[in-house]
């Protein structure tokens, strides 16, 4: 991001950047950074908190008046991720005994996913490989892949399997958000998905199976966030 700051400054556009990784901000020598020790993925700190977000922006814009560049100021507040505290989102009861438990679970979460979809005016991160209607089918293919480690037999390639994993994660995280009465701390719903649901551990198994099958690291590693690698 600091590279872009330099390019824009050279084009005559003044910049101020929010930093999440202080060492990168230091290395690049862009003129103005507000370092925010906030969770990765939340550079403005607090979702659904306009007052806090506006304060962050004001602190950043205040650096435009500084002449002692390059300057990096630290936001006075630290907000940690909460990876080790999984959210306590309710999971649906078993509905179809003939379905794989993970598929049954995902279908049971559909009303929650739909509520979040409505709350966000239709905005969703699901849709790289398939929409919400395809999530059950994607999970079935992940179950096959967890058993045999053969991407082609599961109907994937190296790129689409990662994209499918992102779709499944997004579906669960958006459903989990609807099942929470507030926005939980960073990564709490992520950890809920990977450790408390039927489907999350299947993605762990897929990652391990692809690694054992000799697939490229970029494929199996990016099946999971590094925070969930075990």
């Amino acid at each position, binding site marked *: *991001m*600091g*590279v*872009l*700051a*330099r*390019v*824009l*400054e*050279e*084009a*005559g*556009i*003044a*910049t*101020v*950047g*929010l*930093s*999440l*990784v202080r*060492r*990168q901000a230091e*290395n*690049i*020598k862009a003129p103005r950074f507000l370092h925010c020790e906030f*969770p*990765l*993925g*939340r*550079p*403005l700190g607090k*979702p*659904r908190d*306009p007052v806090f*977000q*506006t304060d962050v922006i*004001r602190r950043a814009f205040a650096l*435009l008046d500084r002449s002692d*560049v390059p300057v990096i100021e630290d936001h006075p507040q630290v907000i940690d*991720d909460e*990876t080790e505290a999984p959210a306590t989102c309710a999971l649906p009861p078993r509905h179809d005994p003939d379905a794989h438990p993970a598929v049954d679970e995902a279908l049971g979460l559909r009303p929650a996913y739909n509520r979040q979809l409505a709350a966000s005016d239709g*905005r969703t*991160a699901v849709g*790289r490989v398939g929409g919400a209607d395809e999530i059950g089918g994607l999970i079935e293919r992940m179950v096959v892949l967890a058993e045999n480690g053969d991407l082609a037999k599961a109907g994937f390639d190296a790129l689409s399997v990662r994209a499918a994993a*992102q779709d499944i994660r*997004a579906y669960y995280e*958006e459903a*989990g*958000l609807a099942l929470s009465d507030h*926005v939980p701390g*960073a*990564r*709490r719903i*992520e950890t809920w998905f990977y450790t408390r649901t039927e489907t999350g551990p299947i993605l762990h198994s897929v990652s391990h199976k692809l690694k054992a099958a000799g697939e490229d690291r970029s494929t199996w590693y*990016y099946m*999971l*966030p*590094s*925070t969930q690698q075990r």
Partner: protein
Amino acid sequence: MTADSGIRANVGEIPTPEFESTPVAAAPPLAEARVAIVTTAGLRVAGDVNYWQPTDASFTVLPGSDRDVQLSHFSPNFDRVGFAADINVVYPVDRLDEMAAAGEIGSVANQHISFMGAQFDATFSTMLLDSGPAAARVLKDDGVDVVLLTPI
């Protein structure tokens, strides 16, 4: 030690180009400035479901009136629930609109820009020499004189 601190340590080790000096553009008074967001979150407008891949140094243009944007970054290594709940925690377009309405900033650009961050050396060069200057032209054409840069 939090989970993020380990990632921060690793990302901090990504080699960056070395520069001797710091370019500085003059900013007009904030109350007169036209402001845009340039984010490295890997955002795309809805419906564009292309999967942003490593080494992709291109950028997307995000209409300022559009809130249906999707997080398309290739990396799974950051919290995504915050953005799902509120795009402003990454892409604070509503906050800028409010600040413009209150007279704190002069105006908000008609369009904003997204790249995908967490990139490596070869991509830095492309951003420095090609896609970065092209994005700057888009912003200059819109009369932008201040940019707020946000990571993911």
